[in-house]
């Protein structure tokens, strides 16, 4: 079973809970479960009783195994989220949950139905030192990552209990790392429209619905080059399905004003192809079909096969001054020494200068190749999809 075929089967199962007559025979249960896991939709499939009743017993059993695992992981993660958000509250650090973490609580019947690898929290850049101290006091430690401030606007923290699974918290002080998306919405704008996430407590807040949709539409392109991961498209259908016509118009106006309309349009078209109609009839023409002057620099991210060097050039162009550009170039050429040691030579005593030279030689090929054929692992944050 090819991964393309597995994806088609997953889409059919998500939409109708079954596959056409006779198609079960060609389903490779292990391959399908692997892809369901990779696409983040296994718990959604396991929550469909009709699907479990019709599917081969082995598939139903594997899906229920995954469901139990996701529930357990989520219970552990939820404890971490509650502790962190309460500690931020006590330290007067305004913080917003966003991306998969927020949607799990605001747009899914149970948070374990929305798998994710980490907890995404957004804070104001000025609160970084205090937030850092709060997390250290709770036992979290900063994870090693490729870039430094100036390229990455997020820092992963890990808390490892002695025997249990680690909780990974990704603290962001900007919505997206690429400069062309970086100023899409400020923390203050997002906080002004934020909503209470009642299921986690009165003090826990996430993005307003229009902002949540904008982030869902942009994230999969800005950080993952229009990746076809199903759960991200499912998120769009869930969030979009809760918007009224006025909110859709606000979404359209905001996307246009912030230069991400092409990206949002592409994301919604993909979501509709997988989940069925998302945009209401009253707004379809305006949002999906109306021509507009599409010279948005962000649209370049829809081309997944663009060499990485072009992406960096876009970032450099988006910066307002040469000081900032120099900082980005330096950060790409000379990532933090701890990162170089752990990634390139964890057991070697080779001097860091030598590791930079090795990286420069290897990196040149990657920078000019197409991301689809040689992922530039060391030039992004290195985290798996969430």
């Amino acid at each position, binding site marked *: 079973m090819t991964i393309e075929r597995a994806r088609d089967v997953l889409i059919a199962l998500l939409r109708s809970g079954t596959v056409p007559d006779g198609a079960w025979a060609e389903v490779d249960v292990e391959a399908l479960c692997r892809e369901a896991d990779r696409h983040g939709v296994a718990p959604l499939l396991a*929550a469909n*009783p009709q699907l479990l009743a019709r599917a081969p017993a082995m598939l139903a059993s594997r899906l229920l195994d995954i*469901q*139990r*695992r996701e*529930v*357990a992981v*989520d*219970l*552990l993660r*939820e*404890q971490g989220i509650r502790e962190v958000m309460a500690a931020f509250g006590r330290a007067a650090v305004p913080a917003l949950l966003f991306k998969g973490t927020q949607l799990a609580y605001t747009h899914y019947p*149970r948070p*374990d139905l929305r798998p994710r690898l980490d907890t995404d929290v957004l804070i104001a850049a000025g609160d970084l030192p205090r937030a850092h101290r709060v997390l250290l006091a709770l036992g979290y430690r900063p994870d090693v990552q490729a870039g430094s401030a100036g390229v990455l606007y997020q820092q992963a923290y890990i808390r490892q*209990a002695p*025997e*249990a*699974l680690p909780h990974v918290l990704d603290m962001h002080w900007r919505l997206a790392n690429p400069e062309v998306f970086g100023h899409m919405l400020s923390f203050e704008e997002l906080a002004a429209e934020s909503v209470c996430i009642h299921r986690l407590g009165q003090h826990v807040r996430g993005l307003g619905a229009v902002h949540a949709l904008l982030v869902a539409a942009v994230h999969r392109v800005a950080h993952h080059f229009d990746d076809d991961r199903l759960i991200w498209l499912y998120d769009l259908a869930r969030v979009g399905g809760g918007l009224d016509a006025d909110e859709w118009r606000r979404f359209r106006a905001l996307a246009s004003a912030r230069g991400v309309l092409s990206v949002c349009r592409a994301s919604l078209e993909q979501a509709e192809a997988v989940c069925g109609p998302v945009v209401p009839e009253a707004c379809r023409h305006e949002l999906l079909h109306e021509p507009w002057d599409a010279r948005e620099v962000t649209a370049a991210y829809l081309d997944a096969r663009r060499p990485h060097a072009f992406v960096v050039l876009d970032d450099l162009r988006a910066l307002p001054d040469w000081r900032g550009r120099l900082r980005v170039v330096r950060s790409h050429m000379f990532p933090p020494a701890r990162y170089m040691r752990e990634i390139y030579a964890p057991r070697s005593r080779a001097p860091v200068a030598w590791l930079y030279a090795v990286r420069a030689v290897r990196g040149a090929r990657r920078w000019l190749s197409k991301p689809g054929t040689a992922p530039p692992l060391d030039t992004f944050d290195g985290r798996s999809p969430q």
Partner: protein
Amino acid sequence: MSVPFAESYVRAPATVVSRAVEDTTVLLDTATGRYFSLDQVGTRAWAHLTTAASIEAAFEALLEEFDVEPERLREELASLIARLASSGLLEVRRVAG
């Protein structure tokens, strides 16, 4: 382990969290990362056991809910409590006297 139903009650330790999933329940010991799943009947037993004033009270409630012989229910409840307690998911305490 023989537990006197009328003189004992059970509670989940502070490190154990649970979530209802359809008609089942997943229990997780956050201290160890070990997790367990209860079926439909186990879920009802867990709900009664962890809230009732005594195991006997939980037993009476389950007897009303399910069409089962009292002795069989008593045996199965004792067995469930023993398994959960040995896995650290339940603490058996004496009712204050």
